[in-house]
């Protein structure tokens, strides 16, 4: 079914291209406005979106974009007003969960404008949703962490306990357990998206606990830098952070919003997406679509300094037999990038750390389960706000 939809879409786009339908007809530029929740220089989430915007603008000569940074929920509606009224925006992207309700409200006000909201679940005829999921890359870095740790203690510095961050932590923990069943993942929370001194102290606190490898969600390279200072390793997050710590950065996840923005804008331009048919349009793009990229920088999947150790550590997989962690990573990556995805980190049987069955044998976690995930995986230690007990 899914493949059929994709096929139809491609066909439609092709047709659109041939007949030059949609907005292209009058030679006008398509105008797209982006609303970010943080500053574009945050080296994290909002910067990631802005790189995506720039990418789309670069490849489409018919596209004109503009953005506003640091827009908090109460000002989203008025910013959309300004985009539509003063800047003639044809498409508006809003990029934070908190932007959801104001986007839906504004979309009613401007029924002819196309809206896309990132990280929420409410849609309308002129509001589609999209998200780039990084959890698969977290799983792969978890595999690496399991092979590289000497203390069997890994650390995760988390921003806010949102389902996205919990999903990342669990995916990392699943990979970790697969490569190293004895290792545990110690979690600390910052309660801020940007808090360099908090991230520094959280990292130092974990090092005191014996942690020798890190993953994190915080919009600065602090954890990576602090790991480097202490001779630990870490995985880069969101943007290519390799140059901040060239010894410590093993790999990481790079969020590539550009492919999603390009796809959406292309389809809007050629009339595939209109302000009337978005009710069921939801992007949940992963490694396969290249919206999540493995690496601490773009052309380096794994830091060469660590490759040998990954190759010399072997594990036994029930299906694949005995193989090196490096080969396992490559195999899993291939499986998740294939046209027909044959692997996902969240496949049952899976229990949470309260010993509650979360996925049955062979069951793949559904989109909604992943989106609302609250439980913590077996080897996760540390505080877990609002942990479900049933």
């Amino acid at each position, binding site marked *: 079914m899914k493949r059929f939809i994709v096929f139809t879409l491609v066909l439609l786009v092709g047709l659109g291209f041939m007949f030059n339908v949609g907005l292209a007809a009058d030679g006008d530029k398509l105008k797209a406005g982006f609303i970010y929740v943080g*500053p574009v*220089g945050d080296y994290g989430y909002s910067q990631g979106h802005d790189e995506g915007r720039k990418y789309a603008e670069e490849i489409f000569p018919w596209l004109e974009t503009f953005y506003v940074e640091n827009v908090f929920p109460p000002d989203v509606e008025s910013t959309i007003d300004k985009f539509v009224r003063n800047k003639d925006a044809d498409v508006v992207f809003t990029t934070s969960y908190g932007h959801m309700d104001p986007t839906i409200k504004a979309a009613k006000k401007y029924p002819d404008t196309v809206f896309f909201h990132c990280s929420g679940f409410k849609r309308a005829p002129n509001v589609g949703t999209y998200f780039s999921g990084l959890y698969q890359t977290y799983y792969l870095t978890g595999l690496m962490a399991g092979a590289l740790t000497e203390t069997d203690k890994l650390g995760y510095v988390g921003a806010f306990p949102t389902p996205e961050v919990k999903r990342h932590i669990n995916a990392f923990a699943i990979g970790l357990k697969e490569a190293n069943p004895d290792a545990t993942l110690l979690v600390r*929370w910052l309660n801020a998206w940007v808090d*360099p001194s908090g991230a520094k102290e*959280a990292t130092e*606190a974990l090092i005191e606990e014996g942690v020798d490898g890190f993953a994190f969600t915080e919009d600065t390279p602090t954890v990576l830098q602090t790991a480097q200072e202490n001779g630990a390793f870490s995985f880069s997050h969101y943007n290519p952070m390799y140059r901040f710590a060239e010894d410590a950065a093993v790999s990481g996840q790079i969020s590539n919003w550009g492919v999603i923005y390009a796809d959406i804008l292309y389809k809007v331009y050629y009339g595939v997406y209109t302000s009337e048919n978005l009710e069921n349009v939801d992007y949940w793009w992963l490694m396969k679509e290249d919206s999540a990229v493995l690496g601490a920088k773009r052309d380096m999947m794994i830091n060469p300094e660590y490759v040998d150790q990954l190759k010399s550590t072997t594990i036994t997989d029930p299906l694949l037999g005995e193989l090196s962690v490096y080969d396992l990573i490559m195999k899993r990556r291939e499986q998740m990038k294939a046209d027909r995805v044959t692997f996902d980190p969240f496949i049952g049987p899976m229990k949470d750390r309260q010993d509650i069955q979360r996925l049955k044998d062979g069951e793949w976690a559904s989109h909604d389960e992943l989106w609302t995930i609250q439980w913590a995986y077996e080897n996760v230690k540390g505080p877990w*706000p609002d942990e479900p007990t049933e």
Partner: protein
Amino acid sequence: MIEAWVIGTLARTLAYGTPLLLGTLGEIYSERSGVVNLGVEGMMIMGAISAFATAFTTGNPWLGILVAAIAGGLAALVHAFASITLRANQVVSGLALTMLGLGLSGLFGKGFEGKPLDSTISNVTVPLLKDIPYLGKILFIDQNPIVYISIVLTPILSYILFKTSIGITIRSVGENPAAADSAGINVWKVRYACVLLGGVLAGIAGGYLSIAYRPAWTQGMTGGMGWLVIALTIFASWKPGRGLVGAYIFGALIHLSYRLQPFVAPQLLKMMPYAFAILALVALAIGPGKQKSEEPNSLMEPYVRGEK
């Protein structure tokens, strides 16, 4: 186990407490002369961006610290001019300085966001001293030179304030400016100098944050430390030595708010330093060791010659 736990925490305490200590030492001098400066946060962040920009462009981190000191000093002069020369309300002027500092640093720091810094002030380990039991591990292994500077500065500034004629001059200006004036002391000059020193030290504190503690520039990266400094100054009863103790207690509490997360909810832990500040002031006010308030008498009052 417990030993390692305590030693590790104390070592972090020094690292996090240092910017607080530097800021507090400066604010103590400023307030001892009779001028409250609520602009510490603004001066700190100006120091942070100036230090980073300088170190980034010149490759010399110590030059960065120097420029941070100058930037902090210049910011303080704005407050001095408003509150000493123009006799404006010190609370409001300080707030204005904080807003201005956060705004300007964010505006002109745009170009430096997300840039790695190659020339930083990195931690050092002191040979020989590192082998002192306990103390060596806390103080002399993997610690930053600026930590030492701030520790050395504390007794010096304390000595100057309480044991030298300069200190007497400063304190008399803060206690009774009219009397000091009639004794031939230039009240304005003393106040300007003290506020300036406050700015210089706050600037260095900011520089420490951006090129030593965590080398990078992020807008708003001082994250409320400047406000803690204000609290610490009162907590310290305007004494540099107690300032050091206070700064380290706060440093410890903030580090512990991550260390103790397995045992207490993170949001409650993050309240801890602030709740502690209030509770400590209450304890000082009602405790058995209650002493007469050290608060300078003329604090927050602009000096006008010929009145009173």
